[in-house]
């Protein structure tokens, strides 16, 4: 049992030339030049997990205890007495392809051209929290007191004064430093951004360079790996997604009925569907930290799926309004406005789904998500039209059974895919659905079968169709709730002990 923890020789030599007060080693002596930017360097072998950086960061930025722009996590490996526990201290990685910035609908994020620092403007932010879903490292955090997100800005204000960032200054081990990185070189080879306990740097090309200890045991992994918690349900979004899909599905049903030459008046149903869609869009603003600035979300449609969703649903609502008006007033042109409505609606639902297709949230990031959203629309649209009395009989039965079966198949294959996955996050989502959330998951399936297949199969009367619609709606709402709470995001390793969940 010769337990020799070899000291990394290279570092010893390096240190011999360093005096603790030597500032130039903690931050670069010059500003980044062309094709360069600042980055963090973290030396995992030096960090003793004292968390000085966490407290110093909170003091620097005046953040409440629940919000930590710099966090320290644990990884552990080896066998007694050759056990190694290392700590990872991380702020923002000021990525080359920052997913927070790319997803942001309002351009609250900018990547500073001189320093490469990814900065966030609380004034521009509307508090949609999409960046908190996009970042694989869980860097941006929502501050409910302010209604906006915030994140590490590498203390750019201090760097500009020639001072070290608060975390760098506070570290008694000099484990955190600021360096200059050549962007093109780093793009070609950013392997040093990866470390046990961190998500792959592929998602956004993190610029943080991590020096790993030499004697890292091969089984080193996150300490918090068995602590899986449910995420926030985001109720306004549950309501918004399900109801917009219902609205689009209803209009699609109406248009099909129109093509097939139905004799029934579609007016009431169209107006109701329009109302539901409008309510859904209204409800979605409740999700925002700053609802009054919701309109700003249209801004970044060239880049952000969230902007596109808002834009497409806005257009959909307008065109659907025209369509409903034409139907009501029995004016010509509804046959051309109809397809446009459906097209915009489907595009909206698809954009909606693509919002969730982010690498940072593996359980959302698959084709199952658009399938889920479109099938919810198809099923609820049909049954809603049925409940309104514009469709009944065999068409309703067949349509509904097909949509429900497809949705059931979609959910089942998704679950199996996650169970069999190599990804910790996907398996954890499957585990949540089969343990903590098992009863809700089964209920969701039961409601889908009952509302989508059993009830429509046995009776196509208006009353039972209304019941079927209510049951199916409950099923889809529960399903969407599970969609939000069961996602296990990628993140950096956390400490073993769980802090109370932050509001983000």
């Amino acid at each position, binding site marked *: 049992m010769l337990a020799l923890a070899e000291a990394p020789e290279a570092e010893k030599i390096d240190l011999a030339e360093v005096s603790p007060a030597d500032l130039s080693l903690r931050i670069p002596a010059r500003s980044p030049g062309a094709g360069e930017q600042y980055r963090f360097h973290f030396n995992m072998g030096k960090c003793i997990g004292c968390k000085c950086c966490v407290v110093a960061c909170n003091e620097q930025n005046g953040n409440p205890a629940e919000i930590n722009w710099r966090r320290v996590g644990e990884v*552990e490996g080896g066998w007694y007495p050759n056990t190694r526990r290392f700590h990872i201290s991380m702020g923002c990685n000021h990525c080359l392809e920052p997913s927070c910035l790319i997803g942001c609908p309002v351009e609250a994020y900018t990547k500073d051209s001189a320093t490469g620092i990814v900065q966030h403007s609380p004034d521009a932010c509307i508090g949609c929290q999409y960046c908190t879903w996009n970042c694989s490292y869980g860097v941006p955090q929502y501050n409910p007191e302010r209604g906006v997100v915030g994140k590490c800005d590498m203390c750019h204000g201090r760097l500009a004064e020639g001072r070290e960032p608060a975390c760098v200054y506070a570290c008694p081990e000099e484990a955190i430093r600021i360096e200059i990185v050549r962007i093109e070189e780093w793009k070609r080879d950013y392997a040093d951004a990866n470390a046990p306990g961190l998500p792959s740097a592929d998602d956004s090309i993190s610029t943080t360079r991590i020096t790993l200890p030499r004697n890292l045991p091969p089984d080193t992994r996150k300490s918090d790996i068995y602590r899986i918690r449910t995420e926030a349900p985001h109720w306004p979004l549950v309501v918004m997604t399900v109801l917009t899909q219902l609205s689009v599905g209803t209009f699609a049903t109406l248009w099909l009925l129109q093509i097939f030459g139905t004799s029934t008046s579609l007016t009431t149903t169209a107006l109701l569907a329009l109302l539901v869609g409008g309510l859904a869009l209204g409800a979605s603003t409740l999700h925002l930290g700053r609802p009054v600035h919701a309109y700003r979300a249209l801004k970044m449609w060239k880049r952000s799926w969230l902007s596109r969703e808002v834009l497409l649903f806005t257009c959909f609502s307008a065109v659907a309004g025209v369509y409903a008006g034409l139907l009501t007033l029995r004016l010509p042109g509804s046959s051309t406005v109809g397809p446009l409505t459906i097209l915009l609606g489907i595009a909206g639902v698809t954009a909606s789904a693509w919002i969730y297709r982010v690498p940072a949230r593996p359980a959302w990031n698959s084709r199952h998500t658009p399938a889920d959203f479109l099938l919810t629309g198809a099923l609820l649209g049909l049954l809603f039209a049925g409940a309104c009395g514009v469709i009944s009989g065999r068409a309703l039965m067949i349509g509904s059974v097909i949509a429900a079966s497809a949705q059931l198949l979609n959910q089942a294959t998704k679950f199996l895919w996650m169970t069999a996955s190599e990804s910790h996050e996907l398996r954890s989502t499957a585990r949540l659905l089969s343990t903590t959330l098992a009863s809700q998951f089964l209920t969701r399936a039961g409601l889908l079968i009952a509302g989508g297949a059993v009830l429509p199969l046995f009776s196509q009367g208006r009353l039972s169709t209304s019941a079927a619609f209510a049951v199916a709606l409950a099923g889809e709402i529960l399903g969407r709730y599970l969609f939000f709470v069961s996602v296990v995001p990628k993140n950096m390793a956390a400490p073993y002990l769980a802090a109370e969940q932050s509001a983000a």
Partner: protein
Amino acid sequence: MSLKRNLGLDILSEKYAYATDEITGYTSARKIPDNWVATTCGYCSVGCGMFVGVKDGRAVAVRGNPAHPVNSGTLCPKGLAEHYTLEAPDRVKYPLLRKNGKFTRISWNEALDAMAENFLAVQAKHGPEALGIISTGQLVTEEYYTLGKLVQLGFGTSNYDGNTTLCMSTAVSGYKRSFGSDGPPGAYEDLQKADVVFLIGANIAENHPILCQHLEANPRKTLIVADPRVTKTAMISDVFLPLKPRSDIALINGMIHVLIQAGMIDRDYIAHHTTGFEELAQAVRKYTPRYVSEITGLEEELILKVAFLYGNAKAAFIGWTMGVNHSTKGTETVNAINNLALITGNIGRDGASPFSITGQCNAMGTRESGFASSLPGYRKFENADDRRELAHLWGIPQERIPAARGLAYPDIVEAAVKKKIRALWVIATNPIVSFPNLGVLRQSLESVDFLVVQDGFHPTPTSELAHLVLPAAIWGEKEGTYTNSERRVSKVNRAVNPPGEAKPDFEIFLNMAKKLGCYDELFPGWGTPRDAFEEWKRVSAGRLCDYSGMSYELIEQHGGIQWPFPQGTQQVTTSRLYVDGRFQTEDGRARLFCVEWEPFPEQPSAEFPFVLNTGRTVEHWHTRTKTGQVPILERMAPNAWLEMNPKDAHKLKLRLHDRVDVVSRRGRISSVELRVTEIVAPGQVFVPFHFVETNANQVTQSAFDPISREPNYKQSAVRVEKSEKFGEPRGKARLRRRSLWPRRQRSSSL
């Protein structure tokens, strides 16, 4: 929340604004103070220099002092959030007297009357020895000096001890036996100058993180760490010795044996400066590498390697903390450590020292100036010359100075259970969480006729039991000096006023003296801590801990001054003790003690198969009366955990994050979160002691070092069971845990 906020028109821009402070630079605007007050950190004994930022009479920020020799500007996470302790919700603001079971606000005059009446009544009926005082390592030196005189000469009792007996008394006893006096001989600078640093039972990366930067600044060193648990410190070591619990004496004796055999000892130093070498050489003969290997579980090769590393070092430093001190063999372990240092001449030189790393911010101050386990100035009760000198300095008859120390902390507790102590004054400590074997301690506190708790916080688990609560100022609200582990005396200053009617302990002591009528005799004309400091300087003059050349101004100027600093000292430099090889014994020689390894008292059994180790985590300080109220620290370490090796967890069918109970012959810790980890060896478990909610001292034992009276907190035999409450939603468990204290009594108190 306002409508403007809900709509998103108001994002609290002002609150979250930044601005540039001329000293600290760009930072949160509301953390920029009007002025910075220089002081010393009030948590541990490292003694970091720092500033408290004050704005509109409130402490809004802290920062490390970049010019301070101890910390060069850094602070640990507790220190970085220390200003939050000043406005913690449970600060006690008014004196409280228990009337009909309820705490009722009273005036200071009534409070001091109540205390004097009750203490004097007990004294009259049962004699002065029926009074007991348990103090702390958290006060300033001026307060210890004042309290010692008040207790011993005012109240006339010697049954006075501090919670320092729970952490440092072993080091004190060990130093006294080996060197003739207390006093850590080395300096932090030695960590930078040694070529071998040997840490025994000391997890400095967790408990004294700022010391690590001194290690970090020494690229030449070989760091050897001996600990049964793979601590953060073990992980930064070059050579780790995962020895079996409490086998350190065998290891050290084995090293001494190897070095004697190999001739790697300093015969010249031994001949001129020590006595007892022949006996020691004889005694360690049986500690062959093979025998030591059997006891420690370390390979023979490793034992030889470590002995040679130490023996070959030009300067070797040994540091230790609670792994050594918390033991029935603690004092003897310290003697073994001192033996090793002495026979190799590793003392009194740059980088070479057997060095006890102290616990509390001013445990050293009470050791020097207190009047508890020794007379002020490291004078001995049993030495008539010392008593005569002190009586002369104070102008009192020599007979008034006791010739023997009174009861030590554990013996005060026992005496209270036996009704020999009837009135107890507990100052700035929280025994309900910190004293071993809670059942006995609780009985003791409930047995006394009158319990006074003087603290900055209420309710604490201890103050809940009090008859009288005296509200005290804490760090940041009062003035004085702290001495750190390396004998550096640093200045502590008032940055803000105490809340409500809380007063500095110094004022409370002087007012008590006025009530007792001994103020004019013992503290003539005293009003400020400086008065006590000036007298203490005179009392310390000529002693090992000589303060006589210091002044508040000089201390502030140099960021602390190490003693001895006799009057007339010209330069402030790093100081070491015993540089000339002359010790504080009568013949000037250090004593080599023969020390035998023995198994620890409570061996594991079939019923209690695990050896329980206790310890700390970096986020919390002691019993969490302070850090438990600092949100960011609580968030980072919200609850206790029990570390268990995966092999044992597998056998017991336990999984990570399970809730488990830890059971010993004496009690049960309920519902602690299990951490399955290779950090601990099979057969051992570890729990941090900070948390009253899962109080580790429900299972620890009443076993004490016979010399130092320090408790044997470590190595309790326990079993681990899955908690019945397991499976309950976390939120509920948390609520219940919180409700244990301190909220329960808030409604009934003011």
